[in-house]
């Protein structure tokens, strides 16, 4: 049984132990972008400990869905329910990781500085950065194997290191859910394998990963579940049963 949900859900960083599984439910979600319907009828439920590949052709609404789940865009109708509560605003439990190409890597900041940004929900603009914050940042850097790189400028990182820095930022945020926009894009084979291994570690410790992905060859190796969309939902379920040529054809065909 390769991808069973963990019996005991330990949320890393938060220090808490949750017997009840953290459940994310998306109900009949409809989102418009500049008065154009971008998503309609997105409806699925999942829980912590899974990794979900968000698959669909260009313009299918993958980024829109991630942004809506992250609270960056408002849904026209439908609901997002996280741990039994409707998600109406940004939460530290949900981290958004943009595409690497959307970020200015010349921004003058070090790896540690970027990871420290994850403490913002806890600190706000005025609280002092405490020893507790420093410890969590240290753990996040350690988990992503970035300790040796922590003082390096972010423009001097490889693609895989950049992605790990982003994930470390999400860990510092003590996020349960990681929403990643095309995390594997632009990485070479070894870096992809490495990231895939980190994904498995993250889900094993009870995190939920939802990542848009466009390389159909690697879906089966990298993810537990698949959500196929083409503005509307084609199928959602575990990779073995749902990621079939027929379903892929429905999403990508005319």
């Amino acid at each position, binding site marked *: 049984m390769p991808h069973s949900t963990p019996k005991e859900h330990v949320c890393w960083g938060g220090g808490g132990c949750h017997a009840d599984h953290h459940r994310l439910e998306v109900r009949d979600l409809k989102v418009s972008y500049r008065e154009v319907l971008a998503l309609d009828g997105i409806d699925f439920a999942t829980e912590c400990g899974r990794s979900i590949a968000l698959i669909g052709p260009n313009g299918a609404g993958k980024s829109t869905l991630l*942004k809506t789940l*992250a*609270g*960056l865009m408002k849904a026209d109708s439908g609901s997002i329910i996280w741990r039994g509560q409707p998600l109406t*605003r*940004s*939460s*530290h439990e*949900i*981290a*958004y*990781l*943009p595409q690497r190409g*959307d*970020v*200015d890597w*010349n*921004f*003058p*900041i*070090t790896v540690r*500085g*970027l990871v420290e*940004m*994850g403490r*913002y*929900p806890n*600190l706000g*603009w*005025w609280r002092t950065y405490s020893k507790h914050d420093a410890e969590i940042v240290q753990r996040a850097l350690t988990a992503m194997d970035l300790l040796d790189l922590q003082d390096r*400028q972010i*423009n*001097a990182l490889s693609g895989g290191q950049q992605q790990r820095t982003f994930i470390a*930022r999400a860990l510092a*945020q003590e996020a349960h859910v990681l929403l990643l926009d095309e995390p594997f894009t632009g990485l070479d084979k070894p870096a992809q394998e490495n990231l895939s291994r980190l994904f498995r570690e993250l889900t094993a410790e009870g995190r939920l990963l939802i990542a848009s992905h466009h390389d159909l060859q690697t879906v089966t190796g990298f993810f537990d579940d698949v959500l196929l969309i083409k503005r509307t939902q084609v199928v959602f379920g575990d990779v073995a049963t749902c990621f079939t040529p027929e379903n892929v054809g429905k999403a990508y065909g005319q």
Partner: protein
Amino acid sequence: MTTFPTLNDFLAEPIAKRALLACLMIGFSNGFVSAFVVLRKSALKIGTLSHALLPGIALAVLMVGLTAWSALAGAVFAALMVGLGSIFLSRTSRLDQDTSMGILYTTAFAGGYLILTQLNIRQKLDEWLFGSIVGMADSDLWIAFSISLIAVITLTALQRSLLIYLFEPNIAASLGVPVRFLNYATFAITILVLISSLQAVGCILSVGLLVAPAATVYLLTDNARTLFWGGGLIGAFGSVLAFFISYPLGWSVSATIILVLGGFFLIAYIFSPRYGLFSKGRQA
């Protein structure tokens, strides 16, 4: 050696003391805020705004006469009109915001120019176009001082939020950074600081004062926080240096300030140990 006594005599004049103080304060506040402008990559927008302020000032002069406060109110009004107007235009037509702004600010500038020429205050017009740091009154200095204080305190207090927002607005919003509030707050500060730089170097050169200092430091540091204080120090030092250079040569102070800051930038561009033309491990 003859220039020193005359310079001393000159410095004994209240007008020169005021000019020197103005260089120090306006140079610092503009340099400090230039860090924000550089990180936001909004240099061109600042150029637009600085030109847009002219008609507001002209209208204020036309209606209530020229005082520091009427100029300030007019400037804020004009900036809001062009800033909000461009958003409105782009939303209600198929034009993007840059195009809308391009039309609005040149039209506003032309209107403002014509009003000022009609008012027969030729000399004042030159001051708004090219600055009048030498002719500042005590009240102007107090305004410049207040603006500097507000800018430095606000940007320092908001720095943690601001840096995340400047790095990536989506990450910032997902972390709960008040993105909309920061937008308004930084817009307000930019307008305030622009007004002080408009007085000092005029609306044509003000972009230089609000970009060059932090752009120079950007080539020397890897720390975003250093950019703010470093920009302030470079701005203040450059302006004061320009004051002393321009006096014996009889040059315009405002033009000299921008020239000196441009020179600083060129030196950093060529000789910066890490990001200069000749640095070995050059990272794009």
